[in-house]
């Protein structure tokens, strides 16, 4: 643990408690990012309230995944401010510190640890000290085993718990990754295209799960499947060319002329 803490001063991230007195857990302000002249994010502003479920929609290249990269520390913006609560500056932390601070991410393409079992995948993702010496002498407590069992139950993979994760179906991998997110007990969940490649029934269950998570966690969902967005969304942000074009409920968004022009219009046409 000590070795883990050495070096960077801001690594006491297990103890980071975001200041959410204003009800906002994630501030993204005036963020700009360009790749070789292409403006991926253009003065983007986004505020996520504590406990809300927000959907991000937008055409390909609108900046949705780039925004997630910026929030989780994978990519640094050229300018702007990203903070967790009011005080924790996420631009000062690296990916692992941001993860430990309580921002979890599910990738577009499901990435699980294929050689490890489903059980071990969840075990590694459990909230707790992620330092070397703890890992070396770690023994699962009864409480942690209960927690893993509970998560396995939630994601419906109890029977598969000792399968190598690589043997799961695509949909099951998506679920496992959601389970890994839950194990980390994050305050904010970033979920990139959770229902891609899922059957109708699986999609329904995912919608149920994500809605049930909101409240206790803040959930940001990026999704192309409009029916899915309609089924879960309370508030939707539309991204277009790296900036937020509109925000509101699904029906507000659908009647917004700008949105119809650039996004829904295309889809209907």
């Amino acid at each position, binding site marked *: 643990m000590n*070795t*883990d803490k050495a070096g960077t001063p801001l690594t006491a991230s297990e103890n980071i408690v975001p200041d959410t007195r204003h009800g906002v857990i994630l501030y993204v302000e005036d963020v700009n990012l360009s790749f070789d002249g292409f403006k991926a994010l253009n003065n983007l502003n986004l505020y996520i309230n504590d406990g809300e479920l927000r959907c991000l929609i937008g055409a390909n290249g609108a900046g949705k995944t780039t925004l997630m990269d910026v929030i*989780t520390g*994978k990519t640094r913006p050229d300018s702007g401010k990203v903070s967790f609560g009011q005080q924790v500056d996420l631009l000062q932390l*690296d*990916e*692992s510190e941001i*993860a*430990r601070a309580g921002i*979890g*991410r599910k*990738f577009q393409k499901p*990435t*699980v*640890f*294929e*050689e*490890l079992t489903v*059980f*071990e995948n969840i*075990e*590694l*993702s459990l909230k707790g000290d*992620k*330092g*070397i010496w*703890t*890992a*070396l*002498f*770690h023994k*699962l407590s*009864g409480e942690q*085993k*209960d927690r*893993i*069992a509970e998560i*396995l*139950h939630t994601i419906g993979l*109890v029977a598969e*718990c*000792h399968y190598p994760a690589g043997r799961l179906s695509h949909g099951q991998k998506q679920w496992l990754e959601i389970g*890994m997110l839950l194990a*980390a007990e994050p305050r904010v969940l970033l979920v990139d295209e959770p229902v891609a490649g899922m059957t109708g029934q699986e999609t329904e269950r995912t919608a149920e799960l994500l809605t049930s998570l909101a409240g206790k966690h803040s959930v940001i969902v990026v999704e192309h499947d409009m029916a899915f967005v309609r089924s879960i969304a309370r508030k939707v942000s539309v991204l277009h060319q790296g900036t937020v074009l509109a925000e509101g409920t699904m029906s507000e968004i659908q009647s917004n002329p700008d949105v119809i022009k650039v996004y829904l219009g295309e889809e209907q046409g």
Partner: protein
Amino acid sequence: MTTQVSESNKTNSLFSSKNPLHLTIGILLITTVLVTLGNLLFPEGSALHVSDYTVSLLGKYLCYALLALAVDLVWGYCGILSLGHGAFFTLGGYAMGMYLMRQIGDRGVYGNPDLPDFMVFLNWTELPWFWAGSDSVLWMVCMVFLGPGLLAFIFGSLAFRSRVSGVYLSIMTQAMTYALMLAFFRNEMGFGGNNGLTDFKEIFGFSLQSPSTKLSLFIATAIALAIAYGICHFIVNSKMGRVVTAIRDAESRVRFVGYKPEHYKVWIFVVSAMLAGLAGALYVPQVGIINPGEFSPLNSIEMVIWVAVGGRNSLYGAIIGAVLVSYAKTRFTAIMPEAWLFALGGLFVLVTLLLPKGIAGLLPTIKQRLITKKDAPDTQQKGAKL
């Protein structure tokens, strides 16, 4: 549900071929006892006699096995393909060699009680600062681990922090060992130049020429290998082992789960380098010489082939691979020395194509076949009854 989960977990690990800890250490210790008895009890000429030459040869193989274990730990489990592990092995060897040089005392060719022969030859009048303390056993033991460990720490910290991985990292490790070879070839380095360190007389006061010392060194190597195996087994089966495997398969995901892969990689790289250093230290008194040739990139590549043949991702596989390939080398180089490298290269290609999991990967398949063969008539009978 919880108990069910944990219990099936237990049975799982009992039956999985990943954990034959007792079996491997058992076989190792039994072999050691048999070789010892064969060497001591049976007279020369008896069919059961194990010659001193064989004892030394086996000791050498066990050093290689320990080295293969080190390579397997970083490559098989953490996915770091090091093509420079020979550097850590050789540094450990030099630490031991320096100690052995000082044990020669005034029995060298020049009879200088303070300076090793090569320094007298270079007209040096006093020991360089980095030889200070090299006559103490404690210094030697420290340097065997510290030398390789420190190099691995510095190299690893720089490389892994800047997220160098894959083939780039392999090339850098190769360059590292090559650079060390060139440096150690120079007389001014103070490690005996291209002759290296040799003409050792005794270790801890026992003559290196005597059969009993050779046997003791062999036994010590076997014990060191058993302990190292135990340590590696513990690491690989701890949560650390699972994190490291996860890093091998999906490093960026590990980061987003909250671990710092670079810390884990440096740690495992340093542990591995120390094991390699220990192997080198045990190797030198048994072969009687250490020179910069050991730094040669070719040696490091050979180590990787041992592990590939034996089976990466399997600790006992690494041991089997090292012993088998080294034995093949001993036989082959006696018959057709110039063809050995071709044979080695061919072996690597064949193993990669046909046995991606190495020999250790074959064992479970064979076991399963035996089981299904046994089961097959059973199920047929049942079917008939129904």
